[in-house]
């Protein structure tokens, strides 16, 4: 009979104990790998939210705040950028393209972004991927809107459906925009970024909703000239008559913006442009480079990450101590077994390899189960993380660091089992043989 069969029969006779050890190791491995993976994935997800934009410009404020509201739609701009400032920088010779955005409204809890066609033409995320339409097309009129993928899915909306957009960012809106419905012109393909959760309307649409063009700004060029446009729109099979419906080719659709994204002809010039905008005398502005500020943002979250790392270290320690405790307990249980084997001539090598190989097998199984649990948890939690943070968790093979950590657990588990193995041999033979039944 092979030693392996002996070890296996012995292990099977202690199923419950072995199972407990495996579970203890599995849970610590899962937490150890999971904590790291989630923070790495979140970091990658953050970095994927914007790409190809060289500068984000807003009113003077902290760059992290500017980044949070312009890219992640978290928080509000403390003040706005005038259209004139936007028009000035848009025409700068270094600027290849620019995207104006105005925030502040919401639709059933989803942030509403007022922008223009530049957004669909130039905005990029991930590895320089452009925004794609799953259905329909960009808005062409003031009373049209484009939905992010998840908004469409959650609200069960399709192009040509009509919705009412409210003012303010709460889910419960206090005053609705005069009950004027907008028609959905298109739905974006999923991006795995906060875009999925957003509703896009034209700047003109926002202005008309807020009544800017009727009363408050009578001198504003678009107001009257565009009032006539809806008449031409009747041929577009619109069932409702949209009083304020205007075309989008206005020179100044709105008075002020929350921020604008800028793409330069030459990316290395970004740092000079940033300084120029920050020191512009006519209006206090803040320009940021998204990559650098994302890193800064991540650094502010670094504390959180470090705490997680410490926690996972302790989790591993606890797991290993648990394993040592189980091994020592099972050794007590196995005193007679070891003594019997020794009395029949089994040497220290045999005793060692029996105990250590069992610990090795239990640790490997524990690691395997732990990794399986981790992937199960990732599959289960990924939608929740995406929902809560707009960040997609990519489920990929274990990284080098993760393999290293598994190796550390394996080595630690095996080394730890040498202690009971050594004790098993140190225990006097008679001690194990005369245990009364």
């Amino acid at each position, binding site marked *: *009979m092979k030693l392996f069969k002996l070890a296996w029969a012995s292990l099977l006779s202690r199923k419950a104990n072995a199972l407990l050890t495996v579970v203890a190791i599995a849970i610590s491995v899962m937490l150890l790998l999971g904590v790291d993976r989630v923070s790495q994935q979140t970091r990658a997800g953050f970095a994927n939210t914007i790409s190809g934009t060289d500068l984000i410009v807003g009113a003077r404020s902290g760059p992290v705040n500017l980044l949070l509201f312009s890219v992640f739609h978290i928080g509000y701009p403390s003040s706005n950028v005038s259209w004139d400032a936007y028009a000035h920088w848009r025409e700068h010779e270094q600027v290849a393209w620019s995207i104006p955005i105005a925030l502040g409204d919401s639709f059933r809890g989803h942030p509403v972004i007022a922008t223009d066609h530049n957004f669909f033409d130039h905005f990029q995320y991930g590895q320089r991927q452009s925004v794609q339409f799953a259905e329909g097309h960009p808005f062409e009129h003031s009373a049209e809107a484009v939905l992010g993928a998840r908004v469409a899915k959650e609200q069960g909306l399709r192009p040509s459906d009509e919705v009412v957009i409210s003012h303010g960012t709460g889910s419960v809106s206090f005053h609705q925009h005069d009950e004027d419905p907008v028609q959905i012109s298109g739905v974006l393909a999923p991006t795995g970024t906060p875009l999925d959760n957003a509703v896009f309307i034209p700047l003109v649409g926002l202005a008309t909703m807020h009544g800017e063009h009727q009363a408050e700004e009578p001198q504003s060029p678009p107001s009257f000239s565009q009032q006539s446009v809806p008449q031409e729109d009747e041929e577009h099979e619109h069932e409702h008559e949209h009083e304020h419906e205007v075309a989008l080719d206005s020179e100044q659709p709105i008075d002020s913006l929350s921020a604008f994204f800028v793409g330069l002809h030459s990316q290395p010039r970004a740092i000079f442009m940033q300084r120029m905008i920050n020191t512009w005398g006519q209006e206090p502005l803040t320009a940021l480079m998204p990559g650098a500020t994302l890193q800064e943002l991540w650094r502010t979250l670094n504390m959180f990450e470090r705490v997680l790392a410490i926690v996972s270290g302790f989790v591993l320690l606890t797991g290993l101590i648990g394993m040592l405790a189980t091994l020592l307990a099972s050794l007590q249980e196995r005193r007679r077994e070891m003594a019997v084997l020794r009395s*029949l001539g089994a040497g220290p090598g045999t005793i060692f390899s029996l105990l250590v190989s069992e610990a090795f097998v239990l640790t490997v199984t524990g690691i395997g189960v732990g990794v399986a649990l981790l992937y199960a948890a990732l599959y289960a939690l990924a939608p929740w993380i995406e929902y809560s943070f707009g960040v997609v968790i990519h489920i990929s093979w274990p990284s080098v660091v993760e393999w290293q950590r598994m190796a550390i657990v394996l080595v630690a588990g095996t080394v730890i089992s040498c202690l009971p193995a050594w004790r098993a041999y140190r225990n006097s033979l008679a001690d194990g043989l005369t245990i009364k039944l």
Partner: protein
Amino acid sequence: MNSIVVNGLRFHYPAQTEPTLDIGQLEIARGERVFLYGPSGSGKSTLLSVLAGIHRPQSGTVAIEDTDITALTARQRDHFRAHHIGYIFQQFNLLPYLDCIHNVALACEFSNVRRQRLQQRNISPEDEAARLLNQLGISHEMHSRRASELSVGQQQRVAAARALIGSPELIIADEPTSALDADSRLSFLKLLFAECERAGSTLLFVSHDAELASQFDRSLSLSALNQSAEA
């Protein structure tokens, strides 16, 4: 030629000061069948485990088959025992998760000497285990039963088979008949004798059962042998 030679043996358990064993001289000839008796707690099991090299005496020499085992290291004594001594423990010490056959064959697993003796007869440890078990009245159907599923008397017989396999020179039996009825006891003894004779083994047999003494070549009273205060 002697199988066992003991000289000036003194042994006490670590926690004790008074020696449990104090034996001036003891000789048992090769092939002899010796009956050892004495009251409970007199040190019979202790003496057997000293002879088997499980305990090491504080002074004196113990020669088994002309090897002074007190001069050996613990590891060497483990080897020596595996090769030359078959021990039927009072507590049997079977592995509960192995079946009968493998419990018996296990004695060959760590002893190439026992394996070689079987090889010379062209027989595998498993076949020899089956033969011995059958001899000792463990029928074929029970061979694949786990030791934990046997009666106490059956466990004793499996333990005996494990001691006998591979024909060690010395068989030490610590009350192997305690769980058997009078008839089974005698037939067990006959089978044990037959196997010892076959292999030419010496037999040192401990029992409370004075009736059995007449079956042996010689009876030893530990009380007479042991000069320690306790005995």
